[in-house]
């Protein structure tokens, strides 16, 4: 036996943390019913791995090693407290008899399994649904998901959301308290609740991704890549619920957007709008993965769990994430900006506008219609939107008007709209971008 090199151990630990944290915590929460004990024991198991793996070598099945170590540590903690130790011992005895003795199973095997009519859900899915329970405030759902499922440290999450660490710590512990005191169940919702609760889970992931996307406009350097975290979490949900069409679509949407992150900002830190981006810098692997996820699910997948939402994707109208992802897919497929199939994008925005009466959808739909059917069509739509007052004070409304006026050659009107937008812009890069556009008008 050779003694493993330190970098190897470090890499193994990093991989194990990324791959196993959620599984270890999720299993321990089910066993102990105590979120704090579960998290403490999981953290202690990883700390023990850092001590013993360099000495004893990396275990053949790191996941099983970590789960066993963590559950023993959890048992110690509960024993010291003198409560519920029987329950844990019972659970360990049960686990040892079951298939888990050979190491944790692959999530995809479990998610599709049906035992006694109820799908045998992976514990991580219980964790995901509990963290996103609608009885928790939205900001707590986001924080708890990143902490408990994502395994991120409270300080990292706090910095990502620009709040003091103490505030974030309080938010997370208050959420755990509510789970305990209000009796929020630790389980995957029953079939009748599953579609709406899954929407809630996806909303949390979407918020995390959006926060990451917004962060890339500002002081992104020291911040955690929330968009990458959101992708990691969405991958987990897709692996656990392969039949959920909207989950796949959300992952696709995230990947297609993330693929463009390098092209979105130039060397000077200025924003580069989509038509001017260097498409060769788009991440081809992420684009390909995103596009593949939007392809219809195979029959084998569709028939695996009859209760899962999205299984009737072929007959059900596409959901909001699929529509948004398909819009990004149209951009991804266009080799140049001029090749963009704008009528296809308009069709998706039409469908989105039917699903939700959102002024932001209306704004994007107007822009797409302006690109597809001529600037005046878009300007007419935007005039109606402006008259409704629903986007009053939002800089992207005058910015969109300015852009369409510019395309129509109405330079003076465009300049006045750009000035309006500059006055309303919220971040420096956005303001600089609009100022550059304004300057270009006078030059041209």
């Amino acid at each position, binding site marked *: 036996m050779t003694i493993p090199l330190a970098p190897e151990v470090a890499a193994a630990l990093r991989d194990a943390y990324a791959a196993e944290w959620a599984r270890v915590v999720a299993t321990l929460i089910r066993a102990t019913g105590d979120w704090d004990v579960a998290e403490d024991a999981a953290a202690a198991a990883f700390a023990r791995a850092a001590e013993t793996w360099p000495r004893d070598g990396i275990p053949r099945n790191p996941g099983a090693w970590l789960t066993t170590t963590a559950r023993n540590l959890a048992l110690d903690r509960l024993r010291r407290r003198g409560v519920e130790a029987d329950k844990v011992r019972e659970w360990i005895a049960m686990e040892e008899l079951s298939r888990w003795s050979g190491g944790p199973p692959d999530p995809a095997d479990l998610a599709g399994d049906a035992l006694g009519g109820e799908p045998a859900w992976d514990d991580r899915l219980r964790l995901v649904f509990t963290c996103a*329970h609608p009885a928790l*405030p939205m900001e707590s759902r986001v924080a708890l998901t990143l902490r408990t499922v994502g395994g991120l440290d409270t300080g990292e999450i706090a910095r990502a959301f620009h709040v003091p660490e103490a505030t974030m710590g309080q938010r997370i512990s*208050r959420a755990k*308290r509510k789970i305990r005191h209000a009796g929020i*169940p630790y389980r995957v919702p029953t079939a009748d609740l599953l579609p*709406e609760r899954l929407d809630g889970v996806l909303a949390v992931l979407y918020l995390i991704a959006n926060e990451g996307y917004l962060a890339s406009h500002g002081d992104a350097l020291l911040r955690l890549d929330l968009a990458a975290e959101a992708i990691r979490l969405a991958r987990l949900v897709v692996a656990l619920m392969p039949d959920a069409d909207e989950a796949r679509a959300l992952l696709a949407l995230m990947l297609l957007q993330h693929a463009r992150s390098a092209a979105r900002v130039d060397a000077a830190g200025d924003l580069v709008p989509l038509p001017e981006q260097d498409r060769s810098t788009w991440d081809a692997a992420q684009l390909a993965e995103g596009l593949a996820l939007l392809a219809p699910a195979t029959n084998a997948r569709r028939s695996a769990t009859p209760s899962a939402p999205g299984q009737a994707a072929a007959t059900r109208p596409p959901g909001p994430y699929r529509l948004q992802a398909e819009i990004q897919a149209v951009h991804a497929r266009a080799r140049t900006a001029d090749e963009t199939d704008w009528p296809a994008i308009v069709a998706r925005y039409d469908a989105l506008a039917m699903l939700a009466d959102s002024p932001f959808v209306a704004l994007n739909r107007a822009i797409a219609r302006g690109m597809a059917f001529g600037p005046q069509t878009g300007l007419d739509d935007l005039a109606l939107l402006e008259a409704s007052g629903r986007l009053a004070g939002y800089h992207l409304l005058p910015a969109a008007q300015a852009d369409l006026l510019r395309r129509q050659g109405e330079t003076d009107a465009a300049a006045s709209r750009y000035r309006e937008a500059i006055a309303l812009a919220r971040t420096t890069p956005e303001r600089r971008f609009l100022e550059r556009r304004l300057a270009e008008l006078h030059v041209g």
Partner: protein
Amino acid sequence: MEYALFYAEGADALPYVPADDNVGEWVDEVEARGVSEYGERLRPEQDATTVRVRGGEVLVVDGPFSESKESIGGFDVIDARDLDEAIEIASKHPVAAFGRVEIRPFVRWPDAAPDSRIVPAGFADRPASGRRYLILVVVEPGGERAAADGGEAEEGGPEAWVREMDDRGVRLFGEILRAPADATFVRRRHGEVLVTDGGFAESKEWIAGFDLIEVQGGLAEAIEVASKHPMARGGAIELRPLWPLDVYEDHVARTEREAAERGLRLEPTATEALAGVAR
């Protein structure tokens, strides 16, 4: 796990449609499932009386502690498997269709017997032998919180009051609720169940617990009982007479009959009650 359900209109209330009121079916279902402990309707807020003690003086005001949209119209105590079942039960209640149902967990005492219940067994079938009031224990911003925060028993907490009122045979049951941060609101709109967190504002008053009392001496005795509650000193006690509901009654007919009564104050004013005029 036991929960209190509080019914109110809330800020986004729709008009009440008596023909859609299926509370009888709801009661049948929760009783058949064995999740219902007790529930009752309250007389409208005009008949509420709010009691405070400040500087040793009993201050009595006619009316509820809060604005009428938030005022509670009824309550239930249920024993559900978990919050998801409580949400399901709340969402089926007719009030969820036009107003909102607030789900509040109770404080669970570590030394409580595992089979102890908020409402004593068989209570719902026991006929009233006096005038019943629901006592709402209200924490007011800036007021002292006493033991109402879901915390441990403290000196000057409600234990002595509970003991005294139990001995007098006045207090029927009651319990402290978990803080509003642990509350969940349920509405049903356009066929969808909307679940939201409590959305607790520090600046607002909130209900920290309740007791059901039964008195022989009418409102005057109820005020005396309320004024002895320790939370009357730091917060407020709202007294609400019960307005028993025949759940199987025709709701359209009931609504017409009650329409006239609804705007009236049937309870004596606090001044009348305390002066003995109402007798």
